[in-house]
């Protein structure tokens, strides 16, 4: 499914009729990097843009929606506000700061302005650091990269759009078969 179709489906779920010109506008909106159309409650606007860009590189838009298509950035903002201890919030915010700093140092650009290749290079570095943290016995607080990755996955795979249209969602299976052959193209089965 392409993104146009994804937006149509989402709007159907939400019960809104959207004209093709509006869809074009939304799609263009999604491609404008340095803006958001929601008001953050924990992050600043600049931080929210950067976090959204990170989430989008973790789960990018392809023939299926990306993290930003299903509002993962706004979800991360709420989760940081409500579900994380002060110490973890601070680690997250300093992670955002450091990512911006190494972006400036490496490419003389803000992370949000970098192209995908450069963004991935920077994230790969953060990921390598987090591997070291895992090997060291996870003794300190969870690093920024793993928090943002965890929240991106949670926000994305529990969103209505992804569960209903890209996974095999069934809220009431009605029966149980424990051991059955699987089709090669089988999607992940999920429920409530």
């Amino acid at each position, binding site marked *: 499914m392409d993104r146009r179709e994804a937006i149509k489906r989402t709007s159907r779920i939400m019960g809104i009729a959207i004209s093709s010109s509006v869809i074009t506008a939304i799609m263009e909106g999604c491609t404008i990097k340095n803006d958001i159309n929601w008001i953050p409650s924990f992050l600043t606007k600049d931080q929210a843009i950067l976090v959204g860009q990170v989430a989008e590189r973790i789960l*990018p838009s*392809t023939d299926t929606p990306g993290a930003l298509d299903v509002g993962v950035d706004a979800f991360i903002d709420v989760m940081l506000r409500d579900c994380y201890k002060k110490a973890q919030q601070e680690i997250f915010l300093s992670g955002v700061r450091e990512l911006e700093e190494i972006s400036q140092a490496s490419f003389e650009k803000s992370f949000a302005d970098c192209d995908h290749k450069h963004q991935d290079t920077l994230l790969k570095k953060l990921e390598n650091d987090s591997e070291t943290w895992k090997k060291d016995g996870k003794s300190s607080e969870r690093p920024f990269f793993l928090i943002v990755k965890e929240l991106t996955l949670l926000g994305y795979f529990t969103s209505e759009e992804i569960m209903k249209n890209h996974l095999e969602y069934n809220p009431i299976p009605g029966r*149980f078969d424990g051991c059955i052959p699987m089709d090669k193209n089988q999607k992940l089965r999920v429920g409530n």
Partner: protein
Amino acid sequence: MIKKQNTYDAIVVGSGITGGWAAKELCEKGLKTLVLERGRNVNHVIDYQTTNMAPWDFIHRGRETQDDIENQPIQSTTYAFNEGTKQFFVNDKENPYSTPKDKPFRWIRGYQVGGRSLIWGRQSYRLGVIDFEANAREGIEIDWPIRYKDIAPWYDYVESFAGISGQAEGLPQLPDGVFQPPMEMYCVEKKVKDAIEKNWSDRMLTIGRTANLTRPLHGRGACQYRDLCNRGCPYGAYFSSNSSTLPAANATGNLTLRPNSIAVTLIFDEKTGKASGIRILDSETSETIEYFAKVIFLCASTLGTTWLLLHSKSQYFPDGFGNSSGVLGHYLMDHHFQVYSIAEFDDLDDNYYYGSRPNGIYVPRFRNIKEKHPDFLRGYGMQGGGYRVGWGYGNDQTGFGASFKNSLMSPGPWRMNLHAFGECLPYYDNKVELNPNVTDKWGLPTLTIICEFKENEYAMRKDMAQTTYEMLESAGGKNVETHYGPDIPGFGIHEMGTARMGKDPKTSVLNKYNQMHDAVNVFVTDGSCMTSSACQNPSLTYMALTTRAANYAVDQLKKGNL
């Protein structure tokens, strides 16, 4: 006049697993019965507000918030606590308790109509012949006053009404029950079962015996395989007081259910040597009210009942109601666990499943059945199961980007875990005491809980780590990881033993019918009655003991003995 209005044939304190059963039995035998529940009312189905919510309907997609952790610091640590179930766990701030710094205890509670029967694990196993004989045979503490044959017909009775699905296996240490058809195993579980049974003549694996209906029963619907039990089931497919026993009690016309009623003290009548009633505090109005009855059932959970008895001091009972023996509050037990192994299986990728099974597998106890283990007494069973991991395993994987995303949209690898649950011996110094220095929201004294696992449990845990590992490995499991951490008592949510049954009034609180030695019209049938813990999940045994005691009480009442 007020006394007459407030007089019933029977009072039941608590509406959880045992209170519901006591209410059903007493009401069906024609007794006008008052059920006192300290928490709010929870109407079956109507008050299961989260039951049909999708993940995206939850602001935090199921996760607990910092506010939740602030209000429910103990409750939020248990497996069943999440954004969809937190309403069924107590507020720890309003309901404090104390422990010594070096002996933590996690007390998991549900104060509402239905109690913890709304959020229980539903695994339902009988104790066997050896469990009731163990103390006597080994000279540990006191003997049970009953044997398996005394309780067996009552297991039949409660299983027939509650609806337990499971597979009959013919094992003496884990007697078969009246079962609904078993749930199916995953391919990986069948594989592990075959390997275990090929490699060890004394070990086997069976599907979990669970209080989830696989066929409709008594107006309740069969399981729809959503695996969302702890939010409350709109089909009534798992056993809870709300879905099963309280509606049956209510149908008799003999039930009066009074939520928001904290039982504060038992009223002792020195002339008759019996309890004449119960004094309650209305948790909403703070009004004190007295209720009277000929027979009283305490089903307020192990520590709830023990608190009530310890708090019911009088000139006659200076150390707590029914505590002439001095053992009330002692011998607190819980199952020790948190020893488990997990393995990956890479040869089953062509197999999948349909539906979410609210049940796992069970490995019945195999230690100290025929041969004596050199290092410890008693034994352990194992729970666990197979699963095909979903997108969450992406958090353990290195990687991000387009192909990473696509891979998480398909089923991940198969895994299987085995968690051992071990018997805890009764120890006098594992105990609870009344603590007047810390009071709850209503100004009532609270409990100090002093409990720890000891040598026998620690020796057993080493063996648990070894056997969970070797059984998964024998089945071809890859990257088998064993978790052998410390365990905190209480976390098994099988706390029991603080008002134990026994033959001798000098060393026990209750007789063989769960009847108080010191006050014959008071019966205690929750987990506090347990003389030893066995290693099986205990709720089914509490149900059987409750129905047995209730039918005995009615019989005695008719004979004029109460």
